[in-house]
């Protein structure tokens, strides 16, 4: 039988200082560093286009709103919208936000039928909407929320990984807007989202938890599903021209569920101009 040990190994300080030990330590350290770097880059890749699936077709929001429990709102919360025609500025010409090409406040685009695109970097994740409302910047570099928050439609988002789950913390919303389940969010609302890929990466579950003592008696929680689109999916552009009389100025009275602009209760314009004007010379 062959003895695989060529010689007795001299354990102790002499061996630890030997060339072999130094080499072994070097290689070990290199492997450890490589392992650490590898571990840092092994977060799930959420990149790509994700879409909700509505069994009733585009615009049939039953798959979203029908599966969200009623929000535990505080008693006496006023309705999100004034009855049509009672807006103090617009009167009978109260424009519908979606048809007026106004910025549709978050979280509308997360429940709207167009997909969203996720662009993922180590230091920042973009969640890019096709609808009016801009895109979300989720800062992953460890920064806190700024002390002097500039309130925006999408709020200020910071994120971190908890294992294979992306956790996004958002504050600093501008104005008020509707939330699935009959809830809403306001300037002091705090949202925590948890993103996780399941079904071999084909489905993205996003759990939402809304907190605001002025609106909810307890956190309003629900989970929505998004499905991976083919790799060659590309962004559509959602054109909107409220200055086109044929398309948009004549659709007063058509309600867009959840499409609440940031202006709804935040900044009421004095009067709605009616027709596109020609430039002054």
């Amino acid at each position, binding site marked *: 039988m062959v003895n695989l040990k060529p010689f007795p190994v001299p354990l102790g300080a002499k061996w630890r200082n030997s060339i072999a030990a130094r080499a072994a330590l070097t290689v070990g350290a290199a492997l450890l560093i490589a392992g650490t770097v590898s571990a840092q880059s092994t977060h799930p890749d959420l990149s790509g286009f994700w879409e909700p699936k509505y069994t009733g077709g585009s615009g049939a929001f039953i798959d979203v709103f029908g599966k969200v429990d009623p929000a535990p709102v505080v008693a006496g919360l006023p309705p999100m919208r004034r009855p049509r025609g009672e807006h103090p500025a617009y009167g009978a010409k109260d424009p519908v936000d979606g048809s007026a090409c106004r910025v549709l406040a978050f979280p509308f685009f997360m429940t709207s039928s167009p997909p969203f695109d996720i662009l993922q970097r180590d230091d920042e994740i973009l969640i890019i909407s096709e609808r009016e409302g801009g895109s979300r910047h989720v800062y992953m570099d460890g920064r806190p929320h700024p002390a002097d928050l500039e309130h925006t439609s999408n709020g200020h988002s910071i994120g971190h990984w908890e294992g294979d789950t992306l956790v996004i913390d958002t504050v600093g919303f501008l104005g008020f807007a509707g939330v699935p389940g009959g809830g809403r969010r306001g300037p002091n609302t705090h949202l925590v989202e948890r993103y996780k890929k399941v079904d071999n990466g084909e489905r993205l579950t996003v759990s939402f938890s809304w907190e605001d003592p002025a609106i909810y008696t307890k956190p309003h929680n629900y989970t929505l599903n998004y499905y991976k689109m083919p790799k060659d999916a590309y962004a559509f552009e959602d054109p909107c021209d409220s*200055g086109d009389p044929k398309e948009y100025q004549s659709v007063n009275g058509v309600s867009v569920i959840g499409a609440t602009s940031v202006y709804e209760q935040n900044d009421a314009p004095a009067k709605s101009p009616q027709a*596109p*004007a020609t430039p002054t010379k």
Partner: protein
Amino acid sequence: MTFLAMKPNRVLRKRAQSIVLFAIFILMFASRSNAQTALPDLSGFWELRYWSRNIPKPSLTPAAASADRQAQAGKDFHAIRWCNHVGVPFMMDDGSPIDIRQSKNEIAITSQSNSPMRHIYLDGRAHPSADTFDPTTLGDSIGHWSGDTLIVDTVGFNDAGLNAIPGGGVRNENSHLIEQYKLMDEGRKLQVNFTWIDDKMFTKPHTYAFMYEKLPSSTTAREWLCDPMDGARARFLIDPPQPPK
């Protein structure tokens, strides 16, 4: 020192040398791999300065040169008044910084004028078929790296929004845009060359260049809102200039 005592040390040294050589080989390979994948990162906020535009006069076709400027002015006003998407190329020079975010598969460019985010796909795909792609103000952009220069190819435009091309001519369904992006001055500047190809608009390709300067890394994204129903904004645009109150 006896032969028997020397032999283990020799074996030990040889093994140590082998391990060291192996480690060096691994590190060299890893370094080479990194070098191969270390593409320039264009991410950041970039702004144009007053000297940042090199825009030669284009060679317009007779039809383009005799286009109705008054009609074009009215079209531009409509787009501004009603918050239409401005599109390319206006979003690349709208008076505010652009925000570029780059990942392995995609680059997104945001402007502060009313435009969706621009997507530049880097995953090797081709343009979608013109039979199925609905033309847009941004078009469909695909990119690839040629050394340290990003080449972006865009087709599928329409003529909506603010479609004037710097120097002359307008973006339309026949337009084809090729851009070259290259970091300069150790990453403090970004040169972008724009070349428009459109045989109905130009007698030869029209090329101009922008030199962006990088803003501090502490710069953050702001939200830009345009409300077409904002009466005060509309009155400002429509009425003759009034003394500020």
